[in-house]
């Protein structure tokens, strides 16, 4: 008779999140994040003209994570990406970014450059770098599209996030001892118009040829991958899974936090409404409303940190694993090609040895067509010897190439690991800091509430003895 007020069995969400109670979150069901990111070029340049890398030790020290971080004294090139602008043509709309370079390096004619680049241009640069340095680890670009994702293509958030990612991309290259010396990088930073440069380089057909060889090589597979690369492969697999999981978990947290923040905000006006019908309680209720409102705003800020800092970094490392896998593949291909060539050589040798014992049938034929069997044999031997010599030369070159590639990869791998550690340590640290800040601000809000109530209510002393 008395408790019969509003019957409101509140089941707010259709899906009861039973799985959240400490159990495994079924992340694989989360289809919301179909993402296209496949711009991994599969080039296997046979021309090979990069300088030898310096020792791993010197590579390790060049850290630079964000704008705010410390800059080591050795840095002689500074690149920034900013000022996104929208361009509308008859065919399309696109965004360009300003790329500003300040450098004291002698290879650069001037000490300052300012150019505008669009996403396509960055893609080109990445492709060229990978072509020239197949086993170096190039930092990933932000994705081309985000399907069903959290942002639209031209929304401010999207552009801002992409801009930051592009900035990071260029800076990682600038910090890399080998990549920063790349001619393509220089062109990217300095050329007014990239169009002409894009058209140069290996022709279409030769690129097709490269791709075919590469596919063939990958199909053939590697005989014996060296231990250390197996280890790296395994690690990359596992790491990829973990990053993907963390990415999804973080997205889920952001979603829940946003909804929490919204609901929190809804409480404030109700307390205000309540305060309007009360006398004694008017002041504390109004105060309550304002406290809730402030907490609501702090909560919104906290989410920003997650979505602008933590999430993009985690996502970058998801993309990194694709890069790593591609690098390992390319290394494998180089080895596979070498192995194939070695096989060919062995085949030729067998052929040559077989030639020593004449084959009755071929001799018979030769004499039929009036050729001197000895001469023919000699000719064939010469030919084979010549071929074998050629192949042997090629093998030597490929051997060198493989050794170089392996070393480059090993060194860059160490470098990458250090950088990854530093990046993730830093971003998780900052997230934890921001969370502490959030709670501290809310704490202050509620403590001020208590304080004001205490001073009003002289006999409230016993309440605060906790």
């Amino acid at each position, binding site marked *: 008779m008395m408790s019969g007020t509003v019957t409101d*069995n509140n089941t707010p969400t259709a899906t009861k999140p039973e799985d959240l109670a400490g159990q495994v979150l079924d992340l694989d069901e989360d289809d919301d994040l179909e993402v296209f990111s496949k711009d991994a070029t599969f080039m296997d340049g046979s021309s090979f003209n990069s300088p030898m890398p310096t020792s791993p030790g010197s590579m390790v020290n060049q850290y630079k994570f964000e704008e705010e971080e410390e800059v080591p004294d050795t840095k002689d090139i500074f690149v920034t990406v900013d000022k996104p602008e929208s361009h509308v043509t008859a065919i399309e709309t696109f965004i360009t970014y300003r790329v500003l370079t300040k450098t004291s390096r002698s290879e650069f004619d001037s000490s300052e450059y300012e150019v505008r680049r669009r996403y396509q241009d960055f893609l080109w640069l990445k492709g060229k770098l990978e072509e020239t340095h197949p086993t170096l680890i190039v930092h990933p670009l932000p994705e081309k599209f985000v399907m069903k994702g959290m942002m639209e293509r031209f929304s401010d958030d999207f552009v801002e996030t992409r801009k930051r990612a592009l900035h990071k991309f260029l800076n990682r290259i600038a910090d890399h001892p080998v990549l920063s010396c790349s001619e393509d990088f220089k062109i990217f930073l300095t050329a007014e118009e990239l169009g002409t440069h894009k058209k140069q380089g290996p022709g279409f057909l030769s690129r097709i040829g490269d791709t075919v060889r590469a596919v063939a090589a990958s199909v053939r597979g590697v005989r014996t991958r060296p231990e250390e690369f197996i280890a790296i492969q395994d690690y990359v697999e596992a790491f990829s899974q973990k990053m993907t999981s963390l990415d999804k978990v973080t997205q889920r947290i952001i979603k829940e936090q946003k909804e929490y923040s919204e609901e929190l905000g809804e409480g404030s006006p109700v307390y205000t409404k309540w305060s309007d019908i009360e006398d004694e309680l008017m002041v504390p209720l109004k105060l309550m409303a304002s406290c809730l409102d402030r907490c609501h705003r702090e909560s919104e800020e906290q989410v920003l940190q997650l979505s602008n800092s933590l999430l993009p970094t985690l996502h970058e490392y998801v993309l990194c694993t694709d890069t790593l896998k591609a690098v390992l593949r390319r290394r494998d291909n180089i080895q596979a090609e070498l192995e194939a060539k070695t096989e060919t050589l062995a085949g030729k040798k067998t052929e040559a040895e077989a030639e020593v014992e004449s084959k009755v049938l071929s001799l018979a034929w030769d004499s039929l067509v009036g050729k001197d069997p000895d001469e023919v044999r000699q000719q064939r031997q010469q030919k084979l010897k010549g071929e074998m010599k050629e192949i042997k030369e090629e093998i030597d070159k490929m051997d060198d190439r493989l050794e170089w590639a392996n070393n480059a990869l090993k060194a860059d791998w160490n470098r990458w690991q250090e950088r990854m550690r530093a990046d993730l340590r830093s971003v998780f640290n900052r997230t934890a800091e921001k969370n502490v800040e959030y709670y501290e601000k809310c704490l202050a809000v509620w403590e001020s509430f208590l304080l004001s109530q205490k001073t009003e209510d002289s006999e409230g002393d016993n309440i605060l003895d906790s």
Partner: protein
Amino acid sequence: MMADTGSEDVAVIGNTDQTPSELQNNIKNTMVEKGGTLLKGLEISVAEAEKRTGKNAVSIQETYTVYLIETRAVDNVSEVANPTPDSLWRRYSEFEIFRNYLLVTYPFVVVPPLPEKRAEFVWHKLSADNMDPDFVERRRVGLENFLLRVASHPVLSNDKIFYSFLTQEQGWKEVVFETGFQAKADSRLKALNATFRVKNPDKRFAEMKHYGDELQSVISQLLRVRARVADRLYGVYKVHGNYGRVFSEWSAIEKEMGDGLQSAGHHMDAYAASIDDILEEEEHYADQLKEYLFYTEALRAVCRKHELCQFELEMAAQDLISKKQQREELATGTVRTFSLKGMTSKLFGQETPEQRETKLKTLETQIEEGEEMVKERTAECDEFVKNAWEDIERFREQKDRDLKEALISYAIMQISMCKKGIQVWNNAKECFSKM
């Protein structure tokens, strides 16, 4: 005869270890102190709840819960409670009967509400099932609260049926039904009718009724929002548990980062687990709001009773006036009001003087009775207004006090939650920096 120790009388509240916050204790203690006429020297508690099965009135097997009411006489001199309590079991429906009795017997009192019959304003974790142990526990606390409210009420605490309810195991139901309270209850229809047709209710009661409506609306909204907020907050914390799991797995493939990740993962697990306690305490705040939500119904009941009283007074007064008018007409022979009798007498002939004489006599008696009735009803009405307004004032003060303390306890809870959050994330931060 016990010495009157006045306001220093403090009845000890049972089951303090059950109340989640020190503040709820304070509310109870205040109840006791300000209540004044507490059942002196009696300690009351609802100590336990138990499931029973049995055959009900129509011989159908049912499962229900019973609650153990314990009472202990407090020795006023030494203020030590008798170690062995008297106790008896009651079920929720008996509490309902008792409360209905109070409503009928003391219509001028804002009668304390019972805890809700069914779980409302739930967020997903709480079961809406009446048999759910959490629900039963909160109901137990609510029932105890109800008894203490009654025991600290200046009027209600003296009721004999109340004492019976607390102490008489057998035959209580017969006793309460014997009071005939069920017959005395005003019909809903009568009350509704009065509400519509009353002409001059006391303005203060009209305002109170309106306030009751608005308070009900606002608290309902608040409870809905709170339930949604609780649900979301639960989500946020629990998803962090997944960080714990992934960090732990990840640490297995790392060398230098392994330890840092592993311990950070543990902190994430702790963070995720901490929400359960936090929300349980918050549930307490919701219960306090709910009590006042249900109180608004009692408040409205008092206002309605006033309207009924006033209406009946107005009816009696109206009746008196019309009778007096009839007398006048009869005496002077003028027909001022249209009446069927008058018309028919005109049509079919006048009455004889003897008939008129009898009529007049009857009217006189009726008028006398009517005047008595008006006097009575006026007195009743005034008495009601006086008592009711006194209780409403008392209720208002109680509400202001209780709700203010509820807000403060909410702030304290938030502070505790923030402090825990700061600790966890500082710990996590340390682990991260070791990565």
